[in-house]
């Protein structure tokens, strides 16, 4: 079967995560001995550890054997491929892939397919030929922050701190932000520079940008680690009243920083919940259910205004909050 290359943002064969139970009934109990493997991008970022936590939660609940592996470092594409291939050899019933790039896990996907093992692409880079995708819309991260500026400010100069050049998520997030903001009146993106996911480089880039544009009103950083570096640069320049700083991912440190009044906001894509949903979808696939190609997971812009709503340990409560919207 030849599937059209997947565009997770526009795929018509999609559903919201919240409709799973309604459309397909309760998750059937998996057969004893069911095993699922997860291959993540890296564990050096809290986002991916939280995702694994979500996988693990559900795996434990349903007594499924689960192994979670990650490439030794971000950008180690071949390393991740080897890990994925090695996992296939061990005979899992389903695999959850979060690839480094759109294509680096392609051979593993093909091998798994040949062996009839369902593969689920969870978040970030999108393998075009994948049959199942669970995750949010990368571009939407940037769009939501841009929307905040449009709704809450009078316009002004903005800057973007980008992730590693050439990385899918970085490109999409930047593009979402920039194209949305440029359609609005009175905004200008005066700088958009890479800081390679590094807190330090984000700090340096932000201080330099503030030299040039002391009247800047806001930063959008492609992830929270860089956003926290930017916050420090803004504080060091004494401009925290004037400059709003946004990150992406919703890691715990970002929450803490928002609470402390430093970081203005972050786009949380709820990794734990996403992990749970992905595992659920995987188990449903193993059970033979025929699900839509894309299952969309939630995302929300977190600011001081709504932080308490989302800052819950218990994902059941979070589900309720999100479902209520």
């Amino acid at each position, binding site marked *: 079967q030849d599937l059209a290359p997947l565009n997770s943002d526009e795929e018509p064969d999609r559903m919201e995560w919240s409709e799973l139970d309604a459309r397909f009934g309760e998750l059937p109990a998996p057969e004893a001995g069911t095993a699922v493997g997860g291959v993540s991008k890296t564990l050096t970022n809290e986002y991916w550890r939280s995702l694994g936590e979500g996988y693990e939660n559900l795996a434990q609940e349903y007594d499924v054997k689960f192994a979670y592996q990650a490439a030794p*470092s971000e950008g180690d594409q071949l390393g991740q491929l080897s890990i994925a291939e*090695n996992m296939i050899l061990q005979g899992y019933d389903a695999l959850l892939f979060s690839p480094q790039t759109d294509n680096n896990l392609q051979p593993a996907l093909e091998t798994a397919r040949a062996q009839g093992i369902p593969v689920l692409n969870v978040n970030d880079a999108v393998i075009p030929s994948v049959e199942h995708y669970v995750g949010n819309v990368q571009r939407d991260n940037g769009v939501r922050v841009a929307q905040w500026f449009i709704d809450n400010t009078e316009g002004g100069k903005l800057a973007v701190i980008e992730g590693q050049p050439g990385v899918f998520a970085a490109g999409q997030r930047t593009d979402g932000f920039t194209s949305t903001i440029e359609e609005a009146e009175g905004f200008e993106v005066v700088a958009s520079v890479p800081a390679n996911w590094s807190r330090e480089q984000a700090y340096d880039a932000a201080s330099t940008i503030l030299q040039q544009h002391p009247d800047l009103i806001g930063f959008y950083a492609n992830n929270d680690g860089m956003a926290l570096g930017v916050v420090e640069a803004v504080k060091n320049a004494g401009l925290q009243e004037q400059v709003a700083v946004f990150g992406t991912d919703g890691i715990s440190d970002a929450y803490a920083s928002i609470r402390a009044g430093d970081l203005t906001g972050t786009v949380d894509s709820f990794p734990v919940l996403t992990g749970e949903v992905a595992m659920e979808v995987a188990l449903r696939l193993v059970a033979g259910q025929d699900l839509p190609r894309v299952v969309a997971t939630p995302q929300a812009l977190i600011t001081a205004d709504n932080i308490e709503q989302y800052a819950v340990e218990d994902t059941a409560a979070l589900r309720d909050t999100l479902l209520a919207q």
Partner: protein
Amino acid sequence: MSSKMTDTTDATTPARGLRSVLPASLSLRDAGTLLGLVLILIVFASLNPVFLTAPNLLNILQQSSINACIALGMTFVIISGGIDLSVGPTAALSAVAGAALMAAGVPVPLAILAALATGMACGLFNGTLIAFAGLQPFIVTLGGLSLYRALALIFTGGNPIFGIPQEFRAVINGDVLGVPVPVVIIGVIAALLWVVLNRSPFGEYILAVGGNQEAARIAGVPVARTKITVYVMSGGLASVAALILTGRLGAADPTMGNLWELDAIAAAAIGGASLMGGKGSVVGTLLGAVILGSLRNGLTLMNVQAFYQLLATGIIIILAMLIDRATRGRG
């Protein structure tokens, strides 16, 4: 006189004896590396039943083939007294060049040639700056590392190129008598390179230039040409790796090849190449690449967590060098 003769023969006997047991092409040093590999295989095999199965061993070879390809080029560069940090971006640039042509409908063989030419052009650029401008290899190729990556990203706008012809992919993903094609390709290349290093004048030139550049020059070795050639070779082999990977992945990513240089240097060094130049072996490097591949494979099979994999990699690299050192001390 006669007593002296006996003396000499006596003293050399043990080394000769050992050497005569090994195939002629396997030096004592390479035997040490082989021993290291065997040790690692034994450890993993005893820990995990899947490890020593034929499919997994082929898997290991397949996974090591990209690194082996890069590391072979690196070995020649290192022997000549240089280093090539730009292999990853060189691979990326030639991958996107080849893929773009393939996707545009250019016949596959032509696109392959173009990809190879791209990689060799990168090597030529490095080599020229090193040989003629006399710049330090580390720095030139560090510059190349940024430069070629930037060119690949600019050329593609940062997006991977899809649309690799199925015929090309089928060849790369096929096998010959059960052995994956990439493994066969690397095997053939390695055999050729072994001959080049050990049997061709060019091999002598590389060893001489790396051993004592000034003496080599005075003895009439074409030093500049030799140096440039090793970088061109390294670039060309990076293209080969890039093409194999493009075939396997079905796409060419401008971010391909991240950190390849470190893996390749590690493989060459484990295999006995000296970064001071003048020393290195094709067989050793292949073994080094397989050691690193086995390590990753075994750790994944045992489901070792990423941080601990990193730990194990660090420890094994150092252990391998210590074992090597210990075995070599006697050799």
